[in-house]
């Protein structure tokens, strides 16, 4: 099964992606992760204004059978969350990199993105 790993994103080992534009990072979970979960039925997002550290749990994704923690890939403050994914959790499965985004951070430490995986390294991780 071929999984999508867009070239313009950075990846956490725990299968979150970050799209960084200036000091704003948009965060979601990867195609590989949604495929593992199968049917997403509920997404619990952090509150706007919350401070998070890289690696801290800050959201929950639930499938029929399991609840999975989502870890923030970067440190910063939550400035926006995606109401569409709360209304229609299936977006996580159908548009993991688009309409299925979870939240936006104003990142506090841009250097942290260097510790995230490149698309090539993430692809290697999920293949092996």
């Amino acid at each position: 099964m071929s999984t999508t790993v867009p070239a313009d994103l950075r990846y956490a080992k725990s299968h979150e992606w970050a799209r960084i534009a200036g000091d704003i990072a948009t965060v979601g979970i990867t195609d590989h992760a949604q495929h593992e979960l199968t049917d997403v039925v509920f997404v619990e997002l952090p509150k706007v204004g919350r401070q998070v550290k890289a690696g801290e749990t800050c959201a929950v994704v639930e499938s029929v059978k399991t609840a999975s923690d989502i870890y923030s890939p970067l440190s910063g403050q939550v400035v926006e969350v995606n109401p569409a994914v709360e209304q229609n959790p299936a977006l996580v499965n159908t548009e993991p990199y688009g309409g299925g985004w979870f939240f936006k951070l104003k990142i506090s430490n841009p250097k942290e993105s260097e510790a995230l995986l490149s698309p090539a390294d993430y692809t290697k991780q999920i293949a092996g």
Partner: protein
Amino acid sequence: MFKRTPLYSAHQKLGARLVEFGGWEMPVQYTSIMDEHQAVRTAGGIFDISHMGEVMVTGRGAQTFLNQTLTNDVRKLAVGQGQYTLMCNEEGGVVDDLYAYRLAETEYLLIINASRIDPDWDWLQGRLDQSRVADGIEIKNVSDQFGAVAVQGPRVAEFINTSIPRGSLGGTFVASVSELKKNEIGVFIFNGVTVYVGRTGYTGEDGFEVIAPAASIESIWNQILADGAAFGLKPAGLGARDTLRTEVCYPLYGHELDEDTTPIEAGVGFFVALEKGEFVGRTVLAEQKAKGTAKRSIAFKMVGKSAPPRPHYPIWVEGREVGEVVSGTQSPSLGIGIGIGYVPTEFSKPGGQIEIEIRERRYPAEVVKKPIYRKPG
């Protein structure tokens, strides 16, 4: 190292996701739980239930022994009929819930839960030792000899006769499998091998359970899958099995039922036939039927969007934690969270407002009548 059914390699070939269940390595899903659930509700699904146990009880004293050991009235069974029943301890706590089929005049087949094969067998042997009708009864644990599949869904009756052709040779006499009525069982021949087919199931849909020698179950699985494909039959795993049975409030041992819970508390007192005479647990169960119980099983639906309820989540009423969820899921058929839990009896009336605690937040829910899902029309 977990046990594997004879269908293990079939599951691997289909790309199933395998998990541990009751000491067995079983498919939780093949494609997705939602897909498989919908297939069962609209066409058909086939489940591997080979991990379940089978016990044969035969002899002149079989009926009396079973009626003293099980809660339902086994005398109601003509040859070729089966019934849902429970096996209780002296305190009325449930040792297991099971199906009892009368295959012949003095021959009964018990279908027991996979996770309870050893405790049930120990219990039955202990009861037999104590029984005053011990002469003329033989019990045999034949769980390892048999495999089984459950074929469930509204379209199954359209193709099952293709897979298991011709009429029965024993049990209920019918000219074809699809003529079996609900809870009837027949003895049929599949590729020269004797198999049992019962019209029963655990999903709330029409369906059949096929119990066959372990060596034949893979070819039965393949045959039914092939014959049912054109009708929409799909392989279905334990994930869908759980969402289906939860929607219709069928109990799962270890969740709604355990050794510290009685059938009355669980809401299945209908299957406790007090009037038949003495049986293990009768004293406690008679008192509970007459006087009520402190706790009671409820079915509930979440009110509005929420995370799905899951086993062990606390139940709150009027600002106090009063009970616990025992089964819960997002209902694929209803698109909302549903579950079954235990609360003090005074909070068990349908319409009651409750809250389910999920990750330290409380979400509103409502007590509803069972079953939570009813087929439309």
